[in-house]
């Protein structure tokens, strides 16, 4: 009973970590440029497919394929930011949403064309699969790995934003973009870097989630709503808000699905509606 509960909460935390990796960049992008990028999930899908291709077709080791997928996705993100996305910051919110949803639809069709419609899996190395026995319960090693790996990344991200020069510039630009520009910070370049970093993280999240969330061409469409909910519940531009929202929704979803089996994905949509009813700007939103 207790063992079950711990197991369920830990899978919820693992799911929350994945959600945070995938949406963390989106939160910064939305907070920094007020840019509602629905196509963020397409980058997670891209990372997943790159990782799967490297492991399955080129026989790369999984742990090497992960950073490769992240770097490749970040590079694609940087290029697309310069080519397409940087032109969209000025248009109205609804138009951004529609246009990027259009890009999501196109990415779904393209992934279908290139990778086929069959879901893809990535075989895990032996030391990451199976279960670890503890005193009185078993835990899936991959979930422990996710929690550990996610924890390290999140710590790095939070420290990076709180302590580094780059993080300080991002925080300044979120707070007051014009003032930051007049202090001599090149906000456009800052934003390209933040965008690339965010898409890279999404790619990494996508690669890590292949076996957990499933990877097929409709991935970005299936998780679009969830990603948006995480960002809005957390509050735009707030990294720790996003983290807490991701964990809340991850744990809420898994626990809800386990104990109220019939409810399905009900909780993951119900929690945000309740949160936004109480706090329309999200948990840690400002303004």
């Amino acid at each position: 009973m207790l063992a079950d509960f711990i197991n369920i909460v830990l899978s919820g935390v693992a799911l929350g970590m994945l959600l945070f990796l995938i949406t963390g960049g989106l939160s910064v992008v939305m907070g920094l440029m007020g840019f509602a990028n629905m196509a963020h999930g397409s980058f997670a899908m891209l990372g997943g497919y790159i990782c799967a291709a490297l492991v399955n077709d080129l026989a790369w080791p999984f742990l090497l394929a992960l950073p490769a997928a992240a770097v490749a996705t970040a590079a694609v993100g940087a290029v697309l930011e310069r080519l397409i996305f940087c032109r969209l910051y000025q248009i109205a919110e609804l138009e951004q949403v529609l246009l990027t949803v259009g890009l999501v639809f196109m990415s779904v069709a393209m992934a279908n064309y290139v990778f086929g419609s069959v879901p893809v899996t990535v075989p895990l190395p032996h030391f990451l699969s199976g279960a670890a026995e503890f005193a009185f319960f078993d835990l899936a090693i991959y979930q422990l790995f996710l929690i550990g790996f996610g924890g390290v990344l999140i710590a790095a991200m939070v420290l990076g934003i709180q302590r580094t020069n780059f993080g300080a510039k991002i925080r300044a630009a979120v707070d007051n973009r014009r003032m930051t520009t007049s202090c001599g910070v090149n906000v456009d370049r800052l934003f390209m870097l933040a965008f690339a970093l965010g898409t890279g993280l999404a790619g990494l999240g996508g690669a890590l989630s292949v076996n957990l969330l499933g990877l097929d061409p409709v991935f970005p469409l299936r998780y679009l709503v969830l990603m948006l909910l995480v960002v809005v519940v957390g509050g735009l531009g707030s990294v720790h808000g996003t983290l807490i929202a991701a964990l809340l929704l991850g744990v809420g979803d898994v626990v809800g699905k386990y104990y109220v089996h019939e409810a399905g994905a009900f909780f993951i949509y119900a929690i945000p509606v309740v949160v936004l009813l109480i706090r329309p700007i999200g948990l840690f939103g400002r303004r």
Partner: protein
Amino acid sequence: MTVVQTSSVADREASWLGRLGMIEILFWVAMAAGGFLLPEHLVLLSQILIAGLFALSLDLLLGYAGIASLGHAAFFGIGAYAAGLLAKAGVSEPLTGLVLSAALAGAADLLCSLIVARLSGIAMLTVTLGIAMLLYELMNRASDFSGGDNGLQGVAMSPLLGLFPFDFYGHTGFWYCFVVTLAGYCGLRRLVRSPFGLALAAIRENVRRVPALGIPVRRRVMTAFTISAVIAGAAGALLTDTTQFVALEVLSFDRSAAALIMVIFGGAGTLIGSLLGAATYLVARDELAAINPTYWYFWLGLMLVGVVLFGRGGLMGWIDNLWRMFRKGRGGGE
């Protein structure tokens, strides 16, 4: 400022009546002619009318009040499921079912607008989307009640008004859709010219100044939401009545997105544009999906991108511009 806006509204009204009234008449005459002359396409024509009515309901929000909803399919779906469930429960006269379903959708939206009308921007988009997804998931899970993924089957409609049975070729279905959509259109056309419609336009133009005119913003927005949901629910009920089946797809995100495309492509804030947008969208979908159904999403995406990048004012905006050029070319003053 206020004076300028009033006169620009008046200008728009005048131009609307003068130029675009012709297009309205053309559309409805063409539809009626299609009903007589294209018996093999009646199903597509009915679909256009249903999608058009749904798009009209969204145009009231988007084009007039300036409120964007990403989850408008929620109310279309409520109407569709309510009509189906009512028919199964014994209320199988279509028009009665339609009125009840539309009322239910309106009541549901009144409840939702208590939350939604407090929000704006991204939060509003997200919550409307979240509500639609919540309903989708509920209907997906409650399969005893709704048929879940298989859809609601065994919906049998009795003859319309007890007089006209639904036939295999869709004649009754088409004319039923025609009359209901025309009624909805005329009602909305009247509504947007009423003080209420002008108040919505004022909210769209400058939400901060509206209270100074003595207009309660929140109440007007909630009323707009509710009226819009009643019409969306009626459109959903029409779909159930004519297809005698409810698919889970009525609540899907695709349907909300499609309605937005229709409204924006046709020209938001023109009403007739939504109907033209629905016709264009559905014909394009028919043709493109016939080429290759798997890659339909690509074309859908491309349409969305194109509509945003090049669709300023939509179809009606382009027609308006052409008309102006034509008038200038002939040297006629305005």
